[in-house]
Structures are given as structure tokens and as C-alpha cells.
């Protein structure tokens, strides 16, 4: 009953933009050392392409970009520019060989940025001339592309194809699409013109990953991500989510070393001062924590009852939490870990005590507290025995 798989594993590319789009988050600035460390980590885990920054931003930014280029990583390094020959010159100063060129493509955006489409196209063509003169590889990025007129989008793709761009990126800049709309748009484009398409999806309504996946199912061959999904507003498609969704839901293994996802996420979280929520999909510490009796019991019998993949696959560990919703199986298991074999009767009596304590404290119990309860329990048993 599966809808047929039609994704070609070999062709799916990831371009991570944590260092550019991620840093553009209102309030976030990465230091030079952090940018270098993140670039290295992305390279080490096998991300094919990295967007490292905006050359026109500052001398400081250009200095960082040069330093990253000098690392000679396996990942292909990209700078990000608006369609403007002057911006391209800054990129060239850094020694960049690959550039993402942005044009604003929805009617609302065009009106503000270029006044009309003709100006947009001529700016784009001027910029391309500059790029070609300097033998720079480039991607054309269509900002607000999901809301752009389809005709204009196709015109841009034709220019890209004729002038030797290697891809066109379509941005759902306001998160205006759902997966079905995304599918239709990408599918329509690819039925009209044969050219590599990349998508950049936003999380305004919580659908960035689903939309990215829908675009890939429609034939898009590249997706832009950021670690933890950090970016302006609600953020982008999270690297760790799309990679794991492709692997486990679509059977497309990109060969990325996912066991370092937690480490990478933690590093970016610290560098951006944006702590990972404990419930964050894929890398949150609570994703493999089980409290409720039914779930904990299920996981103890067979982890696949409630987990799709093993926590070690993303660098996490499984935890059994003892709290209000715990059952006696968890108590038995926990105490076994402490080297104490309880009988079923004992486990049930201790369970009642742990539940009451958890409701009172309004949180689950630490291992220490479980031991205190155990001692109280044993003491009360002894007293009963003495009295008897």
C-alpha cells in the first residue's frame, strides 16, 4: 500500500546555511572561531555544501569566509549575495568560487525591491555577467518563490539554464505553503523545464520539514537546511529532521554521520544562545525519555514498540523517567539497575509512593529520591515486623 518511492538517493543534495541563514536570526552573531568550528563539523559529518556568510556584510565577515576557504574542506563553500555586481565583487575578494545569488520574485517583493520585473531581470543578467567574467559557479535563489508568478519563475529558470547556473533555489520565504501545494508547484515546474531545483522552506506554520520532503518527492534535488532549524522568525527546515525523515520515512540514506547530530546541535545551540528544547524532534533529550506506564513497559519489552530508531543513531541515550504516569514495570526495571530485585507486591507499593511524591513535587523523581523512598519503605516494613 506504500505510495511508490521515486526519490533517487544519489541525487539528493544538502546545502546547510547555519552560518548564513542561521546567523541571520534576529539577535544571533557567531564568532570567527564558532563559524570555523561549525563549518568543520558540517564537513566532517558529510554535508556536501555549506553557505558560510554574506561577503558584503563587513571586513570581519570576509575575513571569516577566507579562513573557512583556507581550511580546504571537502564540502563546497558558498557565499550569499543579492543580485548586484557590487556584492559579487566582495565575494570575489574573499576568494569564493561558489555563490548564491538572490532575487526577490513575488509581486509584493518586486514592487519594493526593483519596481518592476524588467529591472529584476536586467539586474540578474548584469550580475550573471560579472559572475561569468570571474568564472564563479552560482545558484539563483528566488526569494518568496512560492508566491511568485509561475511565468516569472520559469523565465528565471530558463535564464539559469541558458547562462550556466547550476541550480535554482525556490524559497517559501513566508511559509505560505503546505506539502500538497509545495508538491504541485515543484512538480509543475519540473514538468515544464528540466533543471535542478532546490527548495528552502520556512517553519512559520510548523511545516518546514514536511514541505521540504514534499518538494523532494516532487523531484527537487537539493534542500537548504540549518542545524536546529535556526533562522529568522520561526526558522528553516532543520538539518537533523530532514536527514532522518529521508532515511527512516522515505528510505533515502544520504550517508551522513548522524551519530554526531546531538553534538552538532548542542554546539550550535550554545553558539547561538538558543538552547535546544528538550522535546526538539530528533535531538531533544526528552525524545528518548519514557515515563508513562504503557510506553515505558512497551519500550522495555522491545524498543521498536515506541522508537523508530536507536537513540545512539543521533548521539542520544534512552531514559526511563519515574513520575506520575509510571507503572510498576518501570519501578522493577529501575531498581534492578540499582541492584535491587523487588517483588511485584513491593513494586506496586513503591509505585503508589512515587506517584504521590511526584504529584506533590509536580515533577518526576531523581534516582536519589527513589532510593529515599525505598529506604522509607523498608523502614516502615521493619517497623511493621517489629510491632507484629
Amino acid at each position, binding site marked *: 500500500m506504500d505510495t511508490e518511492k521515486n526519490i533517487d538517493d544519489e541525487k539528493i543534495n544538502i546545502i546547510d546555511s547555519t552560518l548564513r541563514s542561521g546567523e541571520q536570526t534576529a*539577535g544571533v552573531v557567531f564568532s570567527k572561531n564558532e563559524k570555523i568550528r561549525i563549518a568543520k563539523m558540517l564537513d566532517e559529518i558529510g554535508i556536501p555544501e555549506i553557505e558560510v556568510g554574506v561577503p558584503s556584510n563587513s571586513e570581519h565577515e570576509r575575513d571569516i569566509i577566507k579562513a573557512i576557504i583556507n581550511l580546504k574542506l571537502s564540502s563546497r563553500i558558498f557565499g550569499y549575495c543579492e543580485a548586484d555586481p557590487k556584492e559579487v565583487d566582495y565575494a570575489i575578494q574573499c576568494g569564493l568560487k561558489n555563490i548564491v545569488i538572490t532575487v526577490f520574485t513575488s509581486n509584493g517583493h518586486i514592487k519594493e525591491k526593483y519596481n518592476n520585473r524588467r529591472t529584476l531581470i536586467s539586474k540578474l543578467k548584469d550580475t550573471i555577467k560579472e559572475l561569468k567574467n570571474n568564472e564563479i559557479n552560482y545558484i539563483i535563489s528566488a526569494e518568496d518563490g512560492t508566491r511568485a508568478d509561475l511565468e516569472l519563475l520559469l523565465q528565471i529558470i530558463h535564464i539559469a539554464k541558458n547562462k550556466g547556473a547550476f541550480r535554482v533555489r525556490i524559497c517559501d520565504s513566508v511559509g505560505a505553503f503546505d506539502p500538497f501545494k509545495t508538491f504541485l508547484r515543484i512538480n509543475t515546474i519540473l514538468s515544464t523545464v528540466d533543471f535542478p531545483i532546490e527548495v528552502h522552506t520556512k517553519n512559520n506554520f510548523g511545516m518546514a520539514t514536511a514541505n521540504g520532503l514534499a518538494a523532494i518527492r516532487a523531484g527537487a534535488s537539493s534542500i537548504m537546511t540549518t542545524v536546529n532549524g535556526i533562522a529568522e522568525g520561526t526558522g528553516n527546515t532543520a538539518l537533523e529532521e530532514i536527514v532522518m525523515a529521508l532515511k527512516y520515512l522515505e528510505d533515502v540514506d544520504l550517508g551522513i554521520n548522524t551519530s554526531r547530530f546531538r553534538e552538532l546541535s548542542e554546539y550550535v545551540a550554545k553558539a547561538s544562545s538558543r538552547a535546544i*528544547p528538550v522535546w526538539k*524532534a530528533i535531538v531533544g533529550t526528552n525524545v528518548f525519555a519514557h515515563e508513562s506506564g504503557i510506553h515505558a513497559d512497551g519500550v522495555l519489552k522491545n524498543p521498536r*514498540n515506541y522508537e*523508530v530508531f536507536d537513540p545512539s543513531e543521533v548521539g542520544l541515550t534512552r531514559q526511563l523517567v519515574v513520575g506520575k504516569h509510571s507503572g510498576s514495570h518501570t519501578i522493577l526495571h529501575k531498581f534492578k539497575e540499582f541492584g535491587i530485585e523487588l517483588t511485584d507486591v513491593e513494586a506496586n507499593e513503591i509505585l503508589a509512593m512515587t506517584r504521590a511524591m511526584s504529584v506533590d513535587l509536580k515533577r518526576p523523581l531523581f534516582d536519589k529520591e527513589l532510593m529515599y523512598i525505598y529506604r522509607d519503605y523498608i523502614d516502615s516494613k521493619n517497623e511493621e515486623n517489629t510491632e507484629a
Partner: protein
Amino acid sequence: MRGINILTEFSQKASEKIDPKLIKIDDTTLRDGEQTAGVVFANEEKIHIAKMLDDIGVHQIEVGIPAMGGDEKEAIKRIASMGLNCSLLAWNRAVISDLEASRECGVDSVAISISSSDIHIEQKLRKTREWVLESVRNSVDYAKKYNLYVSVNAEDASRTDMEFLLQFARNARDAGADRLRYCDTLGIMDPFETFMRIKTIKDIIGIDIEMHTHNDFGMAVANSIAGIKAGANYVNTTINGLGERAGNAAFEELVMALKHIENIDLGFNTKKFKEMSEYVANASGRIIPSWKPIVGSNIFVFESENRIKLYNANPRNYELFDPEDVGLEFKVILGKYSGFYSLKYKLELMGFSFNDSQISELVGIIRNKAISLKRSLFDSEIVETCDLYLKSNS
């Protein structure tokens, strides 16, 4: 290429208009939300959350698990006695004693939950499919004797063999259940698979369907919407997406996505979303990330040049709804990505009047300051920077 054609067909079908009156929200913050490892609500908090949900206009609240007894049962009884407008649903295993506890609480609806996948039936329940079907029949019979509205929950429906899932749904319907809850317990569906499975059940069995999706791969909201597109008419949400592991479909995200992307306006009072999210965040000890869709404190805080310029020309250039719609505020901050326009806008707002060449100079100064501070500037630092600039140029 057939795969592509099927997906195209789904996507076209998904663009058909849906009548908002048909779609209902059953919020489970108080049940699945509280089941989050580490979260316990006090009874007073539960009552407050129930009131807020009712105020906002939610159709049904899943209030808890009466079979747990004690405090939990007490909270459910109290909520049931408050005379709320919405329907109240209690969660049960397919066990008569659980349903008895629910009856004692005075709720009008019950969810009867049982696993439908072979892996759960064999390895967790250690029973048979026939046992599952019979347990459902017996418990639905019991609940219907007492005129309760009944949702039968197919736990781990996503990993259930479709043939058996249809049998499960038919069995529930024939026993008198009012709806089937499709539980993507592990969060392993993508929107296309969801669409196909829900449409199949809906077309063949014709029972009302509720979506219960998990966010393990970040697709809870998208999958719930896919379910609605395929004919489901209830969604089981939680505020802030609270729930086991990576959580459930977030109430506020789903409601706003339906309204602004799907043109399905449920008529809820969205202005209270931020307040409600904050309350639940505090009660659950799960702070809202600043970038959280719909209610995050940073989502209407703008720093980069183009975004501010285009937003000020027309807010719809960068956001589909206004911050006030959800109880938030728009704000411009200055940092590494600020440019001429954003500085001009912000500094005028702060009462400075610089000419264009001064602003151009200040762009570089502000950017460098943000780089050295490794963050955006506080308003007081902007004032300080401008004063210093004026002094050194006079």
C-alpha cells in the same frame, strides 16, 4: 513514474475547499500533554487550562485518565462540574473498569484506546487481533449503554496492516463507536502516506476520523492537515505541541495553518494564543522557544535589512498574519545584519535625526559593535553608540 502521478492526484484533491463547520479540535493538553515525561499539572492548573480552552472556542477537551484515580480523577470531576460549553472526553484502555471510572467523573465522551499494530499486539499486549477486536466491542457496548460519545483509538495505526486497520475501523463502527482516532503514535507518517491511509479508511468505512499525530520527524502539523484534506474531521492537538517525546500537533500552529494556508477559519479567539501558550509553558516547565511558530517571542522581532524594509512596505510581504492576531508585538532590533533602511527606521523611532551619510557611517559602527558583543544591541547601547558618534563628530 506512476508514483508521481498518484501524488499529483492527491495534491490536486487536497486543494478542494473544505467547510470550516465540519472541522473540530479535540485538545489533549491535559492528557497527552501531561503524559510528557517530566510534566505534572497541579489540579488548579488543569482547571485553568480547561477554562482557557473553552473560552477560546475549542470543541472538545480530553481531560485525563480517570482510571489513574486519586488527584487525576478529582481534577476531571471538577472540570466536568464547571458547566463548560465544550464536550469533555476521558481516556480509557479498552477495559470496563476504566470506563466505570470515567462514568463516575461525569464526562460526556470517552476515548477507548487499544493498539492495532501487530508489533504492539504481539510484543506489548501479548494478545491476538481477535482479542483486540473483542475488547473494543465489549467496551464500546458498555459505553454506549450509558449514552457516552465514543472515540475508538487505534494506537500505532500507522504501523498497522491496512487490511486489519479497516477491519478494526469496521468493528468499531458496527459496535456503535462515533469516531475512530488514527494515532500516528511514533510520528512516522509523511503527509502523502497520511493522505492515502486516511482517505482509504474514510472511503471504505465512512466513520468520522480524528487525527492524532506526533512530531518525531517534525511533521505533526502537516500530517494532521493531510488527514483533514483526506476526510478526517477531528484533530487531537496540544498547546505548544506538548506531548510524549517530540510532542504532538501544536494547537496554535494547526489552527493558524488552517486559517491562513487552508482557508479554514475555525473562528477561535486567536488573540489569546500567546497568553495561553505562556500559561501552559509555565505550568509544564517547558519554556516556549523564542522561535516557536505562532507564539515565539522572537518571530516578529526583525533585524535583517530586506525583511524590515519589505515588511514595513506591506506586512504580508513577510508574514501572513499580524502579531496582534496572536497577542505578539512587532519590533526592530539592530545587529550584524542591520542596514541603512533599518537603522533609519529604528533611530527615528528612538528620536534621533541623522542625515543619510551619517546613517551610512553608523551602519558600519553598529555592525562592528554587534560583532564584538556577539549579539544584537540593547536599546540603551544604541543610544550610547549614537551619542558617542555625535560627540566625536561635533
